[in-house]
């Protein structure tokens, strides 16, 4: 057996801890370094956690994700000038998926992908905006955004360390959180469309609740003050356990998002990626807008990509892993695997890859070089998994 059996060395104390870190460690979480955070990769079984999320509900501590507020009279207009996605027209309670790009010497520099939101307006009517960004990119994104702040009128605050975020994902997620909310809050949570959010009292604590997630399931993400994190987590978990729900680690989050065909920064999506070739055109609104990197993105949109993102169905138990070469008809390398795993809902291995567009048509058979083996795989459409109809309303237009 090789290194994966040997447990990690004692945890360095320099890792950041979410407000739930001690809870995870005390409840059997296998803690690993994820982007500098001490996070649970799993409690017992990734497969069990994955399937519980698909069939019932899974709780995920996603407090390591960066949470920023952007406020002040110029907040909305400034974000409109900074993000690839149109922010103008966003209404209170609405979320949009966007990229954060820099203007830079390279053709394009994608610093991160993010959710931008407009929270409830301030009492004086000025918009209050939010951004959720990836843990591993937080510091550079915050530094970049700060470097572009206007002298007055916009305030950017990083709330990552004074809040916690709990993803409650799965067909029972919305009902569970709504059931822990008092009065009209529960009704409002149940009525949320996808990519919509509201403030609510959850298990007696002030929270922001949004119908968002990263698993391909219906569900919500609940943001609370750091001091309330354990109480809210335990209340949600207590409601989830009798329904077959469970606490889940980042391992299941990764297999869930893979099945849902969602790109992950640092894997599918990188600084020099072509978002159009990744199927992320919806995150880039070029028309009538200016933002950093717009020119480079316009060139990419007009051009022909060298590599496009595809889904691969291996039909095997053996998994392809990131970095495995994808081979075409004559055995030449035509691309590379960006994410791959056994897919618990599907029952065999799937992968995402970036390949030569000539090999991207559904049904094309390719080979993947996995260590010493060659594994056949068939190009399939993304996502690999679509949740059954029902649950969340479709995303609002715009």
């Amino acid at each position, binding site marked *: *057996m090789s290194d994966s059996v040997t447990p990690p060395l004692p945890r360095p104390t320099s890792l950041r801890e979410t407000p739930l870190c001690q809870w995870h460690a005390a409840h059997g979480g296998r803690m690993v370094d994820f982007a500098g955070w001490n996070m649970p990769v799993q409690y017992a079984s990734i497969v069990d956690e994955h399937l519980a999320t698909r069939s019932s509900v899974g709780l995920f501590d996603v407090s390591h994700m960066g949470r920023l507020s952007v406020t002040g009279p110029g907040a909305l207009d400034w974000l409109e000038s900074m993000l690839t996605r149109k922010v103008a027209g966003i209404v209170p309670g609405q979320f949009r998926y966007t990229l954060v790009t820099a203007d830079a010497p390279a053709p394009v520099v994608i610093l991160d992908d993010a959710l931008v939101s407009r929270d409830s307006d301030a009492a004086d009517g000025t918009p209050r905006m939010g951004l959720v960004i990836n843990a591993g990119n937080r510091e550079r994104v915050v530094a970049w955004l700060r470097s572009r702040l206007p002298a007055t009128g916009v305030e950017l605050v990083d709330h990552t360390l004074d809040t916690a975020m709990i993803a409650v994902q799965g067909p029972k997620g919305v009902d569970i959180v709504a059931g822990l909310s008092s009065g009209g809050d529960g009704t409002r949570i149940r009525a949320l469309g996808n990519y919509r959010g509201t403030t609510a009292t959850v298990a007696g604590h002030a929270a922001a609740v949004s119908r968002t997630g990263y698993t391909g399931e219906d569900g919500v993400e609940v943001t609370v003050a750091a001091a309330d994190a354990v109480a809210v987590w335990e209340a949600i978990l207590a409601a989830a356990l009798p329904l077959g729900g469970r606490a889940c680690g980042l*391992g299941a989050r990764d297999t869930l998002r893979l099945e849902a065909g969602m790109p992950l920064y640092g894997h599918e999506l990188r600084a020099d990626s072509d978002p159009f070739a990744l199927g992320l055109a919806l995150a880039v609104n070029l028309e009538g807008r200016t933002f950093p990197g717009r020119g480079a993105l316009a060139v990419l949109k007009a051009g022909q990509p060298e590599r496009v993102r595809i889904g691969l169905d291996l039909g095997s*138990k053996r998994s392809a892993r990131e970095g495995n070469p994808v081979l075409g008809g004559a055995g030449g390398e035509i691309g590379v695997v960006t994410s791959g795993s056994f897919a618990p809902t599907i029952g065999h291995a799937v992968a995402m890859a970036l390949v030569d567009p000539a090999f991207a048509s559904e049904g094309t058979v390719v080979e993947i070089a996995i260590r010493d083996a060659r594994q056949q795989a068939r190009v399939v459409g993304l996502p690999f998994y679509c949740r059954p109809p029902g649950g969340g309303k479709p995303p609002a237009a715009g």
Partner: protein
Amino acid sequence: MLKDVRFAKSHEWISPVAGGVATVGISAYAVEALTDLVFMQLPAVGRKVKAGESIGEIESVKAVSDLYAPVSGEIVEVNSTLPDHLETLGQDPLGAGWIVKIRPDDPAEIDALLDRAAYEALIGSQPH
């Protein structure tokens, strides 16, 4: 017999030689540490292997691990039903979850491996 099993630091176990052949598997600790096993590749019967050489793969949802030959010798049998019943590894790692049988070149190589107490001390020193 089970109390006479020896262990490699890489978490394989090997039985005493009986009829010139020793049985090899992986420890309960290794199965527990890996979790979510989904795939196993076995070596070919008849293959000559050296101690420490990779003779197969065990893959979990998260990662793939090599299975190493604890001693040098010839693979004389493999548990061909195991790859389709990987749960057996968790249920009975030292029995029905055996992986290969090997004819050691030098049975004394087995004695040089960790006895149960030494192996338990090894895994006890590793954090869970």
